[in-house]
C-alpha cells in the first residue's frame, strides 16, 4: 500500500516499540477500509518514555499527542499511534485512547484492551479497531455521542466498549462526511 500512496493525503499508523508489526499492518488495513484513505505504517515515535509519570506509573497521552503532531510528515492527514503502554490524563484513572479534537494526532493503547487471557485474538482486535476508529473520529472533530451503540459513545469500561457497535450512528456519519468533504476542499499543506 505504501507504494500506491503517491502524493495523496494519507493516514499514518505509527506503532511504538513493543507493538507487533503484523498488528500494525492489520490495523492499517482496517482503518483504510473504514475511512477510504490510503494508510501508511511507519514508526514515527518509537519511544514514549518522555511521557512517563512515575507517580502514576502510566504515560501521559496528551504529551505524546503534542510530540506526534510536531513530527507529522508531509501530506499526512491523521496520525494514529498504537502503544502497549498504559495511558492516562490527569482527571481519569486511565484512557484507552486520546485524540486531538479536530487535530492531527491520536493514540490508542492496547494495554487494557486485552486483560482477559481467555479472550480470543479476534475479540481483542475488534476492541483495538473500535478504539482506533473512535479516536480518529475525534480528529475529524466528532464529539462523544449519547447513542450507546455509536462508536463515538464514551466508554468507561471494556463492557461498554464491547456493547457499542463498530459503526458511527447516522448523525455522526453525517458529521464525519462533512468533515471529510471540508478537508478535501481545504487540502492539507
Amino acid at each position, binding site marked *: 500500500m505504501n507504494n500506491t500512496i503517491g502524493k495523496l493525503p494519507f493516514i499514518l499508523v505509527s506503532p511504538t516499540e513493543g507493538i507487533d508489526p503484523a498488528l500494525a499492518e492489520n490495523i492499517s488495513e482496517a482503518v483504510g477500509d473504514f475511512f477510504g484513505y490510503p494508510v501508511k505504517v511507519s514508526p514515527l515515535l518509537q519511544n514514549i518514555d518522555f511521557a512517563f509519570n512515575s507517580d502514576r506509573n502510566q504515560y501521559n497521552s496528551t504529551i505524546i499527542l503534542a510530540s506526534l503532531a510536531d513530527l507529522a510528515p508531509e501530506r499526512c492527514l491523521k496520525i494514529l499511534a498504537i502503544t502497549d503502554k498504559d495511558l492516562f490524563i*490527569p482527571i*481519569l484513572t486511565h484512557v484507552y485512547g486520546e485524540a486531538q479534537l479536530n487535530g492531527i494526532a491520536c493514540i490508542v493503547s492496547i494495554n487494557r484492551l486485552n486483560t482477559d487471557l481467555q479472550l480470543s485474538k479476534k475479540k481483542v482486535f475488534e476492541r483495538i479497531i473500535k478504539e482506533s476508529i473512535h479516536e480518529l473520529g475525534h480528529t475529524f472533530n466528532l464529539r462523544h455521542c449519547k447513542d450507546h451503540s455509536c462508536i463515538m459513545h464514551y466508554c468507561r469500561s471494556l463492557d461498554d466498549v464491547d456493547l457499542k457497535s463498530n459503526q458511527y450512528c447516522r448523525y455522526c456519519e453525517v458529521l464525519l462526511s462533512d468533515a471529510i468533504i471540508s478537508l478535501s476542499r481545504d487540502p492539507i499543506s
Partner: protein
Amino acid sequence: MRQGREGNRAKRSEINPSVFGNQVWTVKSSKSDRSKSEIEDQQTKPCIWMASGAVEKKHCNNYFSCNSCKYDAAMEKQVADGKQISWQDSMRKKESMDRTCRHSLTMRMVPRVCAYNYNCSTCDFDQYFEDVLSSATGHAAVAMYNVKGFNVPQGYYFHNGHTWAVIENGGYIKVGLDDFALKLLGEADALDLPMTGMELNRNRPGWGLRRKDNMADVLAPVNGVILQVNEKVRRDPRLANSDPYGDGWLFSIHNSDIKGAFKTLMDHNESITWTGEEVNRLEEMIEAVAGPMSTDGGILRPDIYGNLPGLDWNRLTRVFLKNN
C-alpha cells in the same frame, strides 16, 4: 459479638477490640441486616417477643428500637398484669447455649450467649454495648453498585446534597457524605462536625468541611438530634474518603419518626438514577473548563477538584452540595 484474646482479631467488618472487665470485646454487624436493609425488609424481621417464643408471630416494624415501640410497651403491660409471659422468661426456659443475648435477637450483632440470665439492667456488657460499641459498629458487606465510577450502596438513602442516611437496628440513623462528593472535593483538611445533642434541620446546613482556604456547608439530610459523632473521622477526615459508607460515617441521629424522615430521601433506584445524572452534570462542568473530552476509557479519579484546578470550588459546592 465475640469475646476473645487480643490475638483472636476481628475481620474487616469488626471494629477494633475494646478491653473491658479484663476481657477483650469485638463487635461486628449481623450479616443479615445490611444485605437486606431496605425498610420493607426490616419489617419482616422477627420481633424479640417472637424470637424468644413468647408470642407466635410478630415482626418488627420499628427498626428494633424497643424503647420507642408501642407494641413492646403494650406487651410489658400485659406481662405486668400477669397475662403474658415476658420475652426474658421465655428465653430463660431455653437450654443455656440457646439463650441468645437480646442484642443478637434484635440483629444488632452476631449471635452471643447471655451470661446474665437476662438481667440486662445489671449486665455490664449491655451498658457497654449501648454506650460504646453499638454505634461504632462497622457495616457488614453491602451490595455496592458502581454508577459511572461512583459507588452507591444498596439500603442507603440519599439526599440531593450528596449525603446519605441509613437506618440502624436499634432505631437510630447514621449519616455520611457520599462517594461522589468525597471524590469530587477530595480529602478535607478538617470536618466541622456538629456536637452531640445538637439539633439538625433537614435541608439546612448541618456541618461543614474545609480544604485549605475553601469551605463548604453540607445540608442535613433529615431532622434529628445528634447522638454520637464519629471521632475517628473527625480526627482523620481521610477515613471518609477511604470508606464513605462504612467506617467513614460522620454521626448518628435520633429521630422519633424515622419512616417520615426517610420518605423525603431517595431510595436505592432513585439514588442510582440521580447519581448517574450528577455524573453527567459534572462531566459537562469539566468539559466547560477543560474543553470537550476526546478520550475513551477510564473513570474520574478521586480528588477531581484537585486534579482539575480550573474547577471553581464555590460553584462545585453550590451545584452539588446545594449550599446556596
